[in-house]
Structures are given as C-alpha cells and as structure tokens.
C-alpha cells in the first residue's frame, strides 16, 4: 500500500470516495504479497495492484459495488490449473482479497505514521458485532480491547491477515516500519548496495568514520548518513531479525570491530566484502579476538552470491540476491488466520 499512499492522499484532498482491495492471504504462488493494495476512486481511477493484472478487472467491479454502497466483502480468486489460461492467475495460485470503502479520516494519520516509521495497523472488522468499525492501532499505544491486542500482535510480526477475535472476523493490515540495512564503509560499492537496498524496501543507513567520504552526493539513495565508528553506531542503533548489516570497507581496522559488534546482535544477515585472502585474514583476526567458529559462520564472506559480479552494481545485485535467500525463510503465523 505504501506505493499508492500519495495517490490516496490526493484523492482524499479532492473529496473523492475511495474503495480499496487488499491481498489478505495467498496460497501457493501468487504475484504479490499480503498487504498489496488496489484502490479505486469514485470517478473510476485506479492505483496499485493486487496481482499481476489477471484478477484486477473482477476486483475493480467489486470495488465499484462497494463504492455504490454494497458493503465490505472478502473474495477468493483461485484458479484450477486447466482454467488458468482463461481467467486467472498464471501462477496457478489462490488469493484472498478484502474489498472495503476506506474511511477518509484514517488516510492522513496512516500516511503520517508510515512516514515516521511508526508501527501502525489498519483494522477493519469484516463481520460480527463490530463490522465496519474501521480504526488505526499503534504499537506504542494502549490496545484498549481484544481486537486492539490481537492487531498489535500481528503488527509485531509484520503480518496482514483476517483473524477471528471473539465473535468478530477482523482484517488487520500491518504497516511495520521498513527493516534496517546498515552499510559500513562509504565506498563505491556502498552506493550501489544502498540503492538496491532501498529498492527492496530497506531503510538504508550508510556509516563510516571518515567524514569526507560520507556525503549526500555520493549516497543520494541512503535514508541516513552517519559519521561514526560502525561498532559504536551499532551499540546505539536498533537491530532485529530483519536487519541486514553489510560491512564493505575491507580494511581490518574498521571491519574487525564492526563485525564483532554485529555478531553481538541478532541481525538476520551479516555480510563482509573482501577477497578470499582478506576474508581468511579477517577470520584469523576475529578468532584471535575470541570469536567462535559458530559465530564466524554467521558472516557471509566474501559477501554476495557467486554470480561472477564485477562492477559495483553487479556486486550489489549479488548482495541483494543473498539477502533474499537468507532472510526469506518461511515464517510461522502467530495468530490463527481464518481461511475465508
């Protein structure tokens, strides 16, 4: 939905009513993840998408009915393989899509929270006594009731789903803050890695102790530039399982303390650049500092998948591919999802 926030804000400013269709869950392969959104304005303008374009016409019609006062609805588009050619998903998957009229009052606070990286969920009871009572739930505010607590739980897991809460079926659309990517070493490769990191939805920080290299001219894509020793920066910065740490200086003076600090966190990905020889020397130095082999195994070095990358941009692609491979492990759902 992030991709269409600007459009939603514009439509709201013009006073137009808006219906939104959101991917709630998917089975087998589907072109887009839960949370993907298509919005339709009163005048029939369309923004965003929920699949690769195959079920959009049907979803558009549902949205038009909602705008005409037809009420919120859950729809399932699942295609038998032999029919796949005719109507639906080329991938043969199934998507569950929730269509409702968006409360214009939620758009601005939602956009503001997303902008500020403040965790927020849009919560819409689909059926039951509270049906249609749309609200926003923040991670840092009192939940208030059972629906609020359930929404906070899903938000903490970064999940968008329809769940049962008492007598209600509730659609929870989670907007977790972007995961962090910390790039250490203001080198040419860092600019390319920062750019592709942004592309993959990371909030990218480039950090180097050498002030003259850390400039916005060199790193236009970075969300934040920090002049500090990476190990000190890590001590004061948030790290979780989604965090990616890329150590790119290939200078032991900076790399060794940075990697030691990174290994003390639960970062989901730690990669370090350098030739095989540099990598071997670095391992010895880290061992001498008391780092165990088990800890060393957490470091992806030399960084990136082996695809023969040569230019900084190609190296960045290899790093991004490795990030996806490492961090895209299947996750267990925390709340029991309702299969519509």
């Amino acid at each position, binding site marked *: 939905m992030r991709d269409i926030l600007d459009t939603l804000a514009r439509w709201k400013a013009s006073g137009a009513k808006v219906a939104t269709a959101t991917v709630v869950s998917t089975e087998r392969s589907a*072109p887009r*993840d839960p949370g993907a959104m298509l919005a339709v304005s009163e005048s029939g303008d369309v923004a965003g998408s929920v699949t690769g*374009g195959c079920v959009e016409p049907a979803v558009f019609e549902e949205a038009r009915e909602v705008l005409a006062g037809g009420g919120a609805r859950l729809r399932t588009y699942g295609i038998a393989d032999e029919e796949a*050619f005719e109507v639906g998903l080329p991938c043969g998957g199934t998507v569950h899509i929730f269509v409702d009229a968006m409360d214009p009052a939620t758009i601005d606070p939602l956009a503001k929270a997303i902008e500020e990286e403040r965790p927020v969920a849009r919560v819409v009871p689909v059926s039951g006594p509270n049906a249609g009572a749309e609200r926003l739930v923040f991670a840092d505010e009192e939940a208030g009731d059972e629906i609020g607590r359930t929404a906070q739980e899903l938000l903490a897991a970064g999940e968008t789903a329809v769940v049962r809460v008492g007598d209600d079926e509730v659609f929870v659309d989670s907007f977790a803050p972007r995961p962090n990517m910390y790039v250490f070493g203001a080198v040419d490769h860092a600019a390319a890695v920062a750019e*592709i990191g942004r592309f993959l939805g990371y909030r990218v920080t480039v950090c180097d102790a050498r002030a003259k290299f850390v400039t916005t001219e060199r790193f236009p894509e970075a969300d934040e530039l920090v002049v500090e020793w990476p190990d000190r920066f890590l001590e004061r910065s948030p790290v979780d399982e989604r965090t990616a740490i890329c150590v790119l200086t290939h200078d032991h003076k900076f790399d060794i303390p940075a990697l030691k600090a990174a290994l003390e966190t639960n970062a989901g990905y730690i990669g370090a650049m350098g030739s095989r020889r540099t990598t071997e020397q670095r391992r010895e130095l880290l061992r001498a500092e008391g780092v165990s082999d088990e800890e060393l195994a957490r470091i992806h070095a030399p960084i990136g998948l082996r*695809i023969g990358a040569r*230019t900084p*941009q190609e190296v960045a692609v290899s790093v991004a*591919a490795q990030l996806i491979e490492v961090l895209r492990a299947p996750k267990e759902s925390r709340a029991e999802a309702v299969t519509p």
Partner: protein
Amino acid sequence: MNVLVEAGRLTAEGRPFALATVVDVERPASARRGDHAIVTPEGALHGWVGGACTESTVVREGLLALADGESRVVRVEGGCASEGTIELLVEPRLPTPLVSVVGDSPAARTLVELAQTLGWRVAEQLESQADAVVIASMGQGDEEALQAALAGGAGYVGLVASSKRGSAVLAELRTRGLDEEALARVRCPAGLDLGPSSQEEIAVAILAELVAWRHTKPVSPGQLVEPVVAIDPVCGMTVTIAGATETAVHGGVTYYFCGSGCRRRFEEGAERYLEATS
C-alpha cells in the same frame, strides 16, 4: 575534440569503439604516456597516439579487439625513422547488454526499473538484437512472445511464471512445432531460485541470473563487431573487406591489401610486416 568526451558520447549512444591508451614510450617518440585515441568500427582513428607511424597498427588492433571482445597490449617498434617504441593498451568498448522486457505487468515494470540501475540497456518490447529477453506478460500472450524471442538470437530467454504454468506454455509451443533444442533455451521460472515472492525480489533473482549468465559469456556474439574494413599490413592503407580481391591467409588470419603489389610483398616475407606488434 577531446577523445574521452567523444568516448563518453559513443558509450551513451550505445555505439561500439576501441579505446587505445599509450602506456609506455621509449624515446624518441611523439606520443606520451596517457595519450588516447578511439578506433571506430569503420576503421577511423580519432586522437593522437603517435601519428601516421603507429596509426595503421592501432586501427588494425582496434578492429580485431572489436571483433573478438578481448583487450590487448600492442608494441609498435620503430614505426617510423624518427620514432622509438610505443606500447599501447587497446580495449574494446562494446555496448552494455540489451535486455528486452516483454509484457505490461507490475513484474515487467519492476524489472525494467532495476535493470536500469545495473547500467544495462533496457527495451520495453522485444528487440531483434536483444542479448537477453525476459517475458513477463503474465499469461497475456506468453506463447507468442516466447516464440518470437526464440526466433531471435538472444542468448538468454526467460519466462516469468510458476514452473507449472511454464510447463503448460512449453507444452503449447511443442504442439506448435518448436523442437526440444529451442525449448531447452527457455529458463522457466526466470531467475535464480531464491524462494522469492515480491515483485522486487523476483526482479533481483532475474538480474542475478542475468549477471551470472553474462559472466559465463563475457561478450555475446551479438555485441561483437564484424570489421567492415581492414588495414593493409604493408602500406597501412584502409581496405574495405566486402568484395576485396587481394587477400592472403597467414597463421589463420586473413589479411587484406590495397593491390597486388602489397600482397606479393607480404607473401614474400609476412614476418617483416607483422613484427611491429606483439
């Protein structure tokens, strides 16, 4: 004309050329270390790397570099009475690969965006001279697009689809008469298997596969430049290859001459005319 500015212009236009750089000189020589010249596929030389004495050798090596995609170090010894020895690095500067992304889908648009960050040339429709074709039409005419892509010379042909859907598309092409050899060229699903699911992740997986594919084939045949002219090794004149009658084969290489006189002199002692380079 500044040679490097011209080189930048040609690169931006996606046109091939060879860049010659003087890396060493033994006096007396009129060129200096760091001097540059450009050799175009038409055999023209722009820039100064020692004048007429070295020109014919530089043009010849430049054309060879464009034809085989390899850089070379060339040594020109005593090209003229006044000249010492000049050593040059001659590098082919071939256009970056051209990727055709076929389809009007979010997946296609995302891939186009990411491919541009790699500095490759990207076309949003099928181009006959494309080095790589990625079909992301998501069920809207996949078969037709694949058939057209396979008919071209692209070294990489990928289909964005699930493996099940991909098998169905390939089966349909089989019934249309495409042979197994052609079908085996299709990478489906396109991209390294990273277990990706978002548009952005699929785009990264495809680009990673393209980088790996390009690495195994540093230069695709479509990028190389067949020379249209050659340098007469005896007199240094530029000779048009098409329709040339005065030719000689020496050490597996065909040489072209301005006339029968040069050809005869070459045949009497080829080494004499070829020893200027190493």
